[in-house]
């Protein structure tokens, strides 16, 4: 009986480990127990396979087109006619774009570049409005990467640019179209840079291309089947420098 309770506890800890819920000391403990107990190691593999399956295959329940309008009508909300706040406007356009694209495309359908761009801008703006622009706050890439591991199929490349004056602030999960994607947040002076990694399997590598939306500078490049989107109110030159450093710095162990 005692043994069963202990085993159950160990199983729950493996789940918590995969979910990125354990502090470093407990995580080490679980790693040790998985190393010595094949049943726990197998459980970890199953949970990770299951989470990948859910992320990749489970159809997202994108909310139907018109729900937002219905909700706004229900609470007697009027769209601002005069002098709309550009932030609210940009956010509402982006949300509408996401809802519209969600209605026609399922999880695996690649989104149009413009729709992704709007999603990236929306996520960045939303993060700036929130009290915390990040879900996991850490300047240590060894903390940020495992946090992603528990939440999305593939953790992003995380590099340390602290010495170059782009300290890592943390990370968050954004939803672009209908897919959860990892976003790293770096600081630079008073600016924040959101770097989102969107799967783009089959796309050829491309060098950073810049654009500007609503006062934000955006850089996009493709490397190893991943489209990287960097967005910030930092100057285009500084953002270029950031992208350069990120691309050339190896994610050393």
């Amino acid at each position, binding site marked *: 009986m005692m043994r069963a309770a202990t085993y159950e506890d160990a199983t729950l800890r493996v789940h918590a480990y995969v979910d990125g819920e354990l502090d470093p000391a407990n995580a080490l403990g679980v790693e040790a127990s998985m190393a010595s107990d094949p049943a726990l190691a197998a459980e970890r593999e199953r949970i990770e396979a299951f989470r990948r399956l859910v992320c990749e295959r489970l159809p997202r329940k*994108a*909310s139907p087109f018109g729900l937002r309008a219905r909700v706004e009508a229900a*609470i007697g909300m009027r769209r601002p006619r005069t002098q709309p706040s550009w932030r609210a406007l940009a956010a509402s356009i982006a949300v509408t774009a996401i809802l519209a694209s969600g209605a026609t495309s399922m999880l695996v359908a690649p989104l149009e570049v413009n729709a992704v761009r709007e999603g990236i801008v929306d996520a960045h703006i939303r993060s700036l409005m929130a009290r915390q622009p990040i879900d996991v706050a850490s300047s240590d890439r060894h903390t940020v990467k495992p946090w992603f591991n528990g939440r999305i199929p593939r953790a992003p490349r995380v590099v340390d640019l602290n010495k170059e004056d782009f300290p890592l602030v943390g990370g968050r999960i954004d939803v672009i179209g209908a897919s959860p994607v990892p976003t790293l947040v770096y600081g630079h002076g008073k600016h924040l840079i959101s770097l989102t990694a969107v799967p783009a399997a089959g796309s050829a590598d491309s060098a950073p291309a810049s654009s500007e939306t609503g006062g934000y500078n955006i850089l996009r490049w493709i490397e190893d089947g991943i489209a990287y989107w960097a967005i910030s109110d930092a100057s285009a030159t500084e953002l270029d420098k950031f992208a350069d450093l990120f691309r050339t710095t190896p994610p050393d162990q």
Partner: protein
Amino acid sequence: MSIANRQDQNGLTPAHDRSGRRLQVLFATGSDGQASAGEDDHRRFARLVLPHLNDAYSLARWITANRADAEDVVQDASLRAFRAIANVADGNSRAWVLTIVRNTAYTWLRKNRPSALVVVDDLEAVESAQGVTADLDHETPETALIAKADAASLEAAIAELPPAYRETLILRDVQGLGYREISQVTGVPIGTVMSRLARGRAQVMKTIGRKSS
């Protein structure tokens, strides 16, 4: 004995009943939110609630298993959120919105489709009687079998789960909430969240493993 009474004693989560009732009181005051609400409430609503509409719909859809019902629940929940918007702190607005959506969805089900909730009654008894290991011991599928499952059988396996397991799994694996947030939304201790999650996952893996083998 009515289902509502039984749920009060032995229901899924006491917190759900409590806040459900609190929200109904808010509802019953009859204050006309639409007329008296200043521009600030609307702006607050746009900032705190609207960004989570997709998550709200997704959760309602999983709980009610029906598209039209989910839309009704989201609209109802939005009204409740709007009436409380002035008194809510900025903090974690997503967890707050999802809490309201969840409670609204269960209230809705209890009123319109009580049969969908009957299975919940004995869940806590089942939970204390049998450990996670009981679920895990037999028929644990190979990792390869899990990876092979198709979308339809995965969705069906999740839909088959008891509501308490299902909502926990959805909040974690689909919506990406942390254990603490799930505990807040579902009104149960983190330990219960952990065991429900492990059992829900084990049961889904077992079902899809059986189907794809």
